[in-house]
């Protein structure tokens, strides 16, 4: 019996040490992205608050947290999620609703948090951390002339060669319509209005299908963020849509002949959401407020080319240029929010996709199955 109790004691000790019951647990995507979060604002916040912050990797989606809640054993406090997931998670009652101006600190000049956001949040349960771009890039060694617009992505007579596009409909419908001559409007509002009208979804799908069936074109569908730069570098495709941070890493970090085109880029946010009933909710809220403050968010842009979601963070970066960790690259021009990159863009409409994602997904797969 004594042996058993000793064993139990040792076990509980081991468990408590390995999960460190006091830590705030943040689930994020891993890789270079989580590294930028950890170095940029995770560690400084942890130091300032005296609360350990533990980063765990997950592969997106809400199934794990929903399972944790249903099993009554929640182990995550904060999750890094897509806009689409914040809406679903908020509706399902998985996340805590915020009062933005009360819960989050104002900008250094006193602007309330909600006015410091680049846009409105898609739901009350979401607080942005980065802005990233769905733009496209090309391999400059493989093309004779220089593409500069979204139309050029679909122009296979001037730029022959395969294209890499995202495996699902998200953002592909938007760029197809824009390239087909539909006006974008401010932040892409016309595009989404048109997509609600009959016929326009088919028009977008047909545009993609035509590109894929074009003997001068053809497509490769990518599913992991590392694929687009890799496909460009190997020469498998001449142009690829992708996430700007990955292209930046390949171009600046590895010196690859990859050039980004910002015309018609799709701006998308990545968000933090606070899990309702998480193991350490109080500390988690404190940590979240600090991590998403002006200075802290600017910190992550030292390590990755994604823009902080607060306008005031850009000013911090500007004052500190060259901001990139190599000590010689100016970071602000590489931000999706730099004025030069924002001439024509659309904000990925999370509500539209939360509304129509499933049906569009089915149509998209049916279209893919019919490609010859």
């Amino acid at each position, binding site marked *: 019996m004594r042996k058993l109790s000793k064993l139990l004691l040792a076990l509980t000790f081991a468990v408590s040490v390995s999960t460190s019951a006091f830590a705030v647990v943040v689930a994020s995507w891993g890789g270079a992205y989580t590294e930028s979060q950890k170095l940029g604002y995770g560690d400084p916040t942890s130091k300032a608050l005296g609360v350990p912050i533990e980063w765990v990797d997950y*592969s*997106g*989606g*809400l*199934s794990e947290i*929903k399972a944790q809640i249903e099993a009554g054993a929640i182990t995550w406090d904060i999750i890094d999620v897509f806009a*689409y*997931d914040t*809406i*679903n998670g*908020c*509706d*399902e*009652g998985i996340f805590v609703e915020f009062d933005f101006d009360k819960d989050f600190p104002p900008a250094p000049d006193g602007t309330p948090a909600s006015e410091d956001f680049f846009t409105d949040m898609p739901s009350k349960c979401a607080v942005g951390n980065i802005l990233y771009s769905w733009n496209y890039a090309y391999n400059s060694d493989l093309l004779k002339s220089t593409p500069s617009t979204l139309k050029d992505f679909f122009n296979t007579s001037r730029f022959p060669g*395969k294209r890499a596009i995202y*495996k699902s409909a998200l953002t592909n419908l938007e760029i197809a319509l824009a390239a087909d001559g539909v006006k974008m409007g401010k932040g892409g509002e016309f595009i989404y209005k048109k997509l609600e009208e009959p016929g326009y979804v*088919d028009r977008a799908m047909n545009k993609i299908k035509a590109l*894929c069936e074009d003997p001068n074109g053809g*497509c*490769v*569908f990518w*599913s*992991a963020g590392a694929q687009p730069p890799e*496909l460009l570098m*190997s*020469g*498998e495709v001449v142009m690829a849509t992708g996430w700007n941070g990955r292209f930046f890493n390949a171009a600046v970090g590895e010196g690859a002949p990859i050039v980004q085109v910002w015309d018609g880029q799709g701006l998308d946010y990545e968000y933090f959401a606070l899990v309702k009933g998480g193991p350490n909710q109080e500390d988690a809220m404190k940590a979240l407020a600090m991590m998403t403050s002006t200075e802290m968010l600017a910190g992550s842009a030292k390590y990755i080319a994604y823009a902080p979601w607060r306008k005031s963070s850009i000013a911090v970066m500007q004052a500190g240029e060259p901001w990139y960790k190599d000590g010689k690259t100016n970071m602000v021009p590489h931000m999706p929010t730099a004025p030069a990159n924002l001439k024509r863009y659309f904000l990925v409409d999370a*509500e*539209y996709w*939360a*509304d*129509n*994602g*499933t*049906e*569009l*997904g*089915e*149509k998209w*797969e*049916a*279209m*893919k*199955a019919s*490609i010859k």
Partner: protein
Amino acid sequence: MSSETGKILTTDGIPLEESLKQSEKKNKIKAFLLVAPLLLFLIITYMIPIGDMFSRSIDDKMVTNMLPKTYKAMENWDGKELPPEEVFEAFYLDYKILVKNKTAGKLQTQLNYEKNGFKSVLKKLARKQKKFEEGNYKEQIMKVHKRWRNVEYWRAIKRRAPSYTYSKYLKGIDMYSNEDGKIVQVSEDRRIHRILWIRTVEVAFFVTLFCFLMAYPIAHLLATLPMKYSNLLMICVLLPFWTSLLVRTASWMILLQQQGIVNDFFVWIGLVADDNRPEMMYNKTGTYVAMTQILLPFMVLPLYSVMKTISPSLMRAGKSLGATPATAFFKVYFPLTIPGIGAGCLLVFILAIGYYITPALVGGASGTLISNQIAYHMKSTLDWSFASAMGLMLLTGVLVIYWIYNKLVGVDNIKLG
């Protein structure tokens, strides 16, 4: 003579029959206790989850309970035209309570599964209903969004009325039951699940076939080579087995893509022209090659273990009785390996039918299989009841194949060693 005296007693005076029964009972309990952990394990990790999946896939009480007044009012509505004022009023009253209790989000999600486009109009209604005036709710609701004037949306609400439903299973084969209660196909541009089922079975079938064709000679070689060579060969078979699936998939991408190593080699030796490189990746070829290589060990190992037990003298005996090598192989050797073939094929087929990461990465436009769809509904839409229904359909499919195999070959003929 009383019956008591007829019984044989043990030394302590208990009738022998009873005493035997007792000790047997003890043994039975002991035996049961020995297997109890396994049984419990099976029940907890296998039976309960499958039961839970099943109840999830048919249980629709949540929506039924959320809109009690609406469904009562809808009883008299035939679903042909827009419902009458009572239905609108009942819906408004039900929804108002949900908004107040902050559970409206769940209804939004559920109805959006039934008909896309519900989410945003319900959110809009949640905001606007606070300013509703009493009476004429039909007018007021229809003013909130034009979709409320579309009878399709009201039909979708009505479809969710029963507490139990098999609609998710219908959806899994691109069907639904319409307002007349007839089971019909969904619109043509959305029929995707049947394509995916066929594609999944096709991929699993061909991967199993290719695995068999490649593994049979390898396993034969392994079983007949002298120990020191066969050990080396065995390591060659197992080495990829120990490498991460993603690493192997990525390696195939680098090897087989149009600008990849294999194509470079072909161009270098002059087999193909530089501007006419064959496409071996991001299509079905890529899926077959990568999955066959990944699943090959699962075929080699059962085959090998069965072949190892076949005595070489049997083939010699056949030949000495006048059979040609081919006849001896097909009449003697091959039938003896059938248990291994059965085990290997079932193993590979079942693993292949649930694969989705590899096809998604290397399969290009044809890389979506039914498991991708299940994962999508698990992770993104959170429509777990649909995911459960499709999961069970997949499980049933596998069981059917197992049943056919049993009928054709016999399950007792499966051997893993």
